[in-house]
């Protein structure tokens, strides 16, 4: 979530789902919210009941669109053109919330005079290094000031001399021109940057009629300001693009300009996926972060020892100045008594990354024999991984793999039923991969927490034993770790020290020796090292080794030995404030709305009675209100840093700086550090596009990742063999890779077979009837599926008289279970966003024809 991280300081939803009921507009974009987040959509309906305007911007007319007041159709992958158009509309019509924006964002900040815009460089920002295909970000900085990133996963790329010359954010306030006349203040840069994103241009690029687009602009600006607020909800419909991070940045900028962040019913709701996707970035399964968004040590950076790591990563100002406390306490939790001040708390036992180890390049590493074995826990990459045939080729090269799931998955059976075998590329007996298929427990069969969309931890208890030998992932990892520790106990090799020195003692229960999930949560919360008292909150975490803490942002979830806050289900009654602080535990510190200092004006008074959340109580000299305060509780609104003392940490942030994890406390309209592809969102076409970029010579995101050409080619813009825009998506009836729903009869029958949605006009043109078999092709592969011909998809009339049809296909299906179908991800490519390495399965191009594939020795002919 680097986009929300660089914009607001934390990579997470800024508001609670139920707070949507207080919204005056809800823009759902990059999400099919009603289908994929039906429970959260309940609160959109509440808002609607109270008079809110609901907008859905999406290539398809979906179940979400059906419940909206406005459906704005746009071609897949053109969201930044649309969002940039909204930004232009706000700036040119002077509709931004002046008192909020001038004080709480960096709109007045002056940027380096070296900065050059894509408007000047035809689609590139200044600092482009053609050889390295990357940017150096010196020219994106504040004038004479280096701005540290609030992100853990950033790798700042500046020239060496820059570090010396620039002054720190500790030396004084950022350079500003509050009259906004300075040509290089953020306001003027943004106006120039988005000048050409007119409603007409939006229509030419996205295909959304200018009239509909303006209706959207009108609806969201009318419902923002002192008295009114609105929310933008997005999901993987934005993240799955080569420009995904910048799309979310676009939403972040709009909400900051409208003054919608940190206020009731306002903000950006990152709709996270099923179960605990938010949890899996908080305590990450990601390769480049440690728990709590701490940077994973990197062999290519100044990370040789703890001292150097902290010097490099600690920001001088803002909350992240506390980094050493969180890092040392994490090391204490992991390495226990083996961690000492002398050995840097065991820092050297942490693995150092050497490059991009995300899922997509791992596929290639498997295929190239670099990775020999693999665990797939609750994951089905043959269905969910981009370029499925390449994934399967990778699996076929492994020595062994472990698949843990509730049923046999496509991944576990690729060697006998997969595309390699079906397409005649390999025979099962030629595939040497040893597959260990193990039964895994489902949610009701184990204890634990889910961290949901709005950072809310909710405990669930085990209800029944899983069938047969099924066990939880916790059980599996714990006992695997125990055995590894036994295996390496006597080793003298230095490389085995990380395993030897790891703390790995959790209470066990029952004949299966099930480790206690509550004990794990207690460790995550943190405790004092010597007397094992639970830490009551983040301020208790120390950098001297006296505390252990598994994930600093979760501190406070288990404040005493008998108080698991995530178990609490105390909703506010009918007369309560509706923040439901007694329901579960939201990180950090049970705060439900992030940056809620911004719900009050610079003097600390609510912007309006209708939209009050927290405010300054001058008598008691404290912030107070209906939510936990996301600010220093006793810092008065008028506080000014004493720059003569070179203040650090929170002392360098004024009483009117709500975004406390950003180095200058202000929302970043212009993001100087942290992103690899530019300080402002700019429209690029997807890496595969049916048309050329109408705004710049630069067609696609220049920094986007495209790992390998072999078996992974991309079509050139406008390739006549692949004229249609293609997108993949989920259905409410199925769960991700489909294993838990396609193998259950009563959910399988709801969407019993794979299909592709095809607009009526295109179907007529190609002679395709409803439920006919069709073949869809890209340069990566071909699949066959059934046609669902529908008016809910419509042709896009773009600039230059070109018409593009959108074809879409759910990606849940495979060959296992009751509901089957060909795999959409055979068509997609291994490409990614430069910041997150996230794939671009939401926007590519395809060819389409009626008929079937000649598989199985050509048994199927034309149907």
């Amino acid at each position, binding site marked *: 979530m680097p986009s929300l991280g660089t914009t607001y300081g934390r990579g997470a939803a800024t508001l609670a789902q139920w707070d949507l009921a207080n919204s005056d507009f809800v823009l759902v974009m990059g999400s099919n919210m009603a289908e994929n987040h039906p429970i959260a959509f309940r609160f959109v309906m509440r808002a609607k009941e109270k008079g809110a305007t609901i907008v859905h911007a999406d290539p398809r007319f979906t179940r979400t669109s059906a419940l909206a007041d406005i459906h704005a159709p746009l071609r897949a992958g053109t969201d930044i053109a649309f969002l940039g158009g909204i930004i232009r509309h706000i700036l040119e019509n002077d509709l931004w919330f002046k008192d909020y924006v001038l004080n709480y964002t960096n709109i007045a900040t002056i940027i380096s005079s070296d900065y050059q815009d894509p408007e000047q460089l035809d689609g590139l920002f200044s600092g482009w290094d053609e050889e390295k295909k990357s940017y150096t970000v010196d020219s994106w900085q504040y004038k004479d000031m280096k701005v540290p990133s609030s992100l853990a996963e950033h790798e700042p790329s500046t020239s060496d001399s820059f570090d010396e010359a620039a002054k720190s954010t500790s030396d004084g306030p950022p350079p500003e021109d509050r009259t906004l006349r300075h040509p290089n203040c953020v306001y003027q840069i943004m106006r120039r940057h988005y000048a050409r994103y007119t409603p007409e241009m939006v229509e030419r690029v996205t295909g959304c009629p200018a009239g509909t687009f303006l209706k959207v602009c009108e609806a969201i600006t009318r419902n923002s300001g002192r008295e009114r607020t609105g929310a933008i909800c997005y999901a993987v419909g934005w993240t799955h693009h080569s420009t995904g991070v910048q799309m979310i940045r676009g939403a972040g900028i709009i909400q900051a300009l409208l003054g919608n962040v940190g206020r009731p019913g306002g903000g950006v709701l990152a709709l996270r996926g099923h179960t605990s996707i938010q949890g899996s970035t908080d305590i990450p399964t990601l390769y480049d972060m440690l728990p709590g968004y701490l940077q994973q040590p990197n062999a290519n950076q100044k990370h040789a020892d703890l001292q150097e790591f902290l010097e490099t990563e600690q920001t001088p100002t803002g909350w992240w100045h506390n980094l050493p406390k969180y890092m040392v306490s994490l090391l204490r939790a992991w390495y226990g008594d083996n961690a000492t001040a002398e050995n840097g708390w065991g820092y050297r036992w942490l693995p150092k990354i050497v490059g991009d180890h995300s899922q997509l390049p791992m596929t290639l590493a498997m295929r190239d024999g670099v990775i020999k074995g693999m665990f797939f826990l609750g994951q089905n990459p043959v269905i969910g991984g981009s370029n499925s045939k390449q994934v399967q080729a990778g699996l076929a090269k492994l020595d062994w793999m472990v698949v843990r799931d509730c049923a046999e998955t496509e991944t576990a059976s690729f060697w006998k039923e997969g595309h390699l075998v079906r397409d005649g590329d390999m025979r099962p007996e030629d595939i040497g991969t040893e597959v260990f298929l193990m039964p895994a427990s489902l949610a009701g069969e184990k204890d634990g927490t889910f961290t949901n969309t709005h950072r809310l931890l909710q405990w669930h208890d085990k209800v029944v034993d899983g069938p047969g030998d099924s066990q939880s992932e916790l059980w599996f990892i714990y006992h695997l770790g125990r055995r590894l520790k036994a295996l390496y106990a006597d080793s003298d090799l230095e490389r085995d020290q990380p395993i030897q020195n790891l703390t790995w003692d959790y209470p066990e229960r029952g004949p299966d020796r099930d480790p206690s999930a509550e004990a794990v949560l207690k460790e995550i919360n943190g405790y004092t090292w010597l007397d094992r008292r639970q830490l009551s909150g983040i301020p208790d975490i120390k950098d001297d080794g006296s505390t252990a803490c598994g994930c600093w942002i979760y501190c406070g979830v288990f404040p005493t030995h008998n108080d698991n806050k995530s178990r609490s289900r105390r909703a506010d009654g*009918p007369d309560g404030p509706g923040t439901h602080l007694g329901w579960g535990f939201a990180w950090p510190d049970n705060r439900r709305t992030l940056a809620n200092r911004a719900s009050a004006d610079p003097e600390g008074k609510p912007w309006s009675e209708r939209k009050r959340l927290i405010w300054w109580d001058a008598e008691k000299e404290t912030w107070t209100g209906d939510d936990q305060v996301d600010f220093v509780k006793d810092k008065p609104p008028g506080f000014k840093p004493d720059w003569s003392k070179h203040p650090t940490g929170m002392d360098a942030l004024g009483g009117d700086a709500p975004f406390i994890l950003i180095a200058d406390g202000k929302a970043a309209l212009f993001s100087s550090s942290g992103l690899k592809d530019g300080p402002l969102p700019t429209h690029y076409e997807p890496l595969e596009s049916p048309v050329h970029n109408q705004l710049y010579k630069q067609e696609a995101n220049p920094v986007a990742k495209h790992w390998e050409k072999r078996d992974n080619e991309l079509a050139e813009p406008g390739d006549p063999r692949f004229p249609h825009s293609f997108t993949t998506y989920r259905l409410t009836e199925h769960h991700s890779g489909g294993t838990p729903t396609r193998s259950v009869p009563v959910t399988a029958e709801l969407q019993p077979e794979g299909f592709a949605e095809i607009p009526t006009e295109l179907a007529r043109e190609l002679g395709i009837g409803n439920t006919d078999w069709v073949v869809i092709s890209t340069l990566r592969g071909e699949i066959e599926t059934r046609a669902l011909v529908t008016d809910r998809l419509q042709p896009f009339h773009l600039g230059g008289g070109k018409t593009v049809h959108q074809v879409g296909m759910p990606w849940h299906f495979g060959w296992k279970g009751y509901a089957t179908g060909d795999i959409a991800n055979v068509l997609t490519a291994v490409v990614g966003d430069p910041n997150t390495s996230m794939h671009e399965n939401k926007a590519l191009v395809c060819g389409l024809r009626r008929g079937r594939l000649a598989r199985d020795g050509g048994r199927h002919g034309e149907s």
Partner: protein
Amino acid sequence: MGVHPRALDYAESFPNRVIPDEAELTCGTRIEPGKSYGFFTDTTLCIGCKACEVACKEWNSLPADNLGLTGHSYDNTGDLGANTWRHVAFIEKIGAGDDRVQEMAPFQSNWLMMSDVCKHCANAPCLEACPTGSIFRTEFDTVVVQQDICNGCGYCVPACPFGVVELSPADGKAHKCTLCYDRLKGGLEPACSKSCPTDSIQFGEVNELFDRARGRVESLHGKGATDAYLYGAPDTPGATGGLKHLNAFFLLTDRPEVYNLPPEPTRASARVRPSLLTGLATMAGLTLAAAALMSAGRDRR
């Protein structure tokens, strides 16, 4: 509905006992024998998620009965039947080509979705047609088939004007929605309405639901959704042909036929007297005619 004050008595993730009168917490209704209960299905809030279908099949242990792609929008269920007691219909009305609808009414529009169910008619034709007494009216004023009494005669099937009841090929007996009779006895809200994320399906006392529904229609009209009307409430379409009202009634925004509901359902029994009289009259006429012919023949001879 807001949070019920009693909910705070169960503020743990794992209540260690059955919550008495749970329906009071989940939908504000305390279930008591002797009162009338039913569903108000407000289609304008339906997002077509089919949670009701799944919850129904899970609670009632009904098997999957159709694994084919129908091609009818997102409806792969087809219709109500012996093993399908909730069915979400999907009707696309967006128009094609340049005629695609641009205007969108508040709440659901242009892609209609409706969760259909047994109507639990106030005077149920299926019950009236049942010769064995297998179909009975419960203490909650709902209509339930007892399979241990049903003899599979099938009279109820054509008697139902909504096509709800079906004989199961597995046991030859009639099956349909029980309005979760077993759950009502335990103080629980029916599975489908409890699982509905947007409260499109609302469970409660029928008269309260009628009032709520009339208020909803008024509110929708005020918001510009002037097509909204009730189907099956007293004196509305659906409550015709001798049907006083439907305990499971609907708020619709298009003609009933669009949702595959009969525009003017009738009770078979309302046709019995006229049919019988017509039949008797025919018989009488034929008898007279025959007598006349015979006597005429006699004359000819």
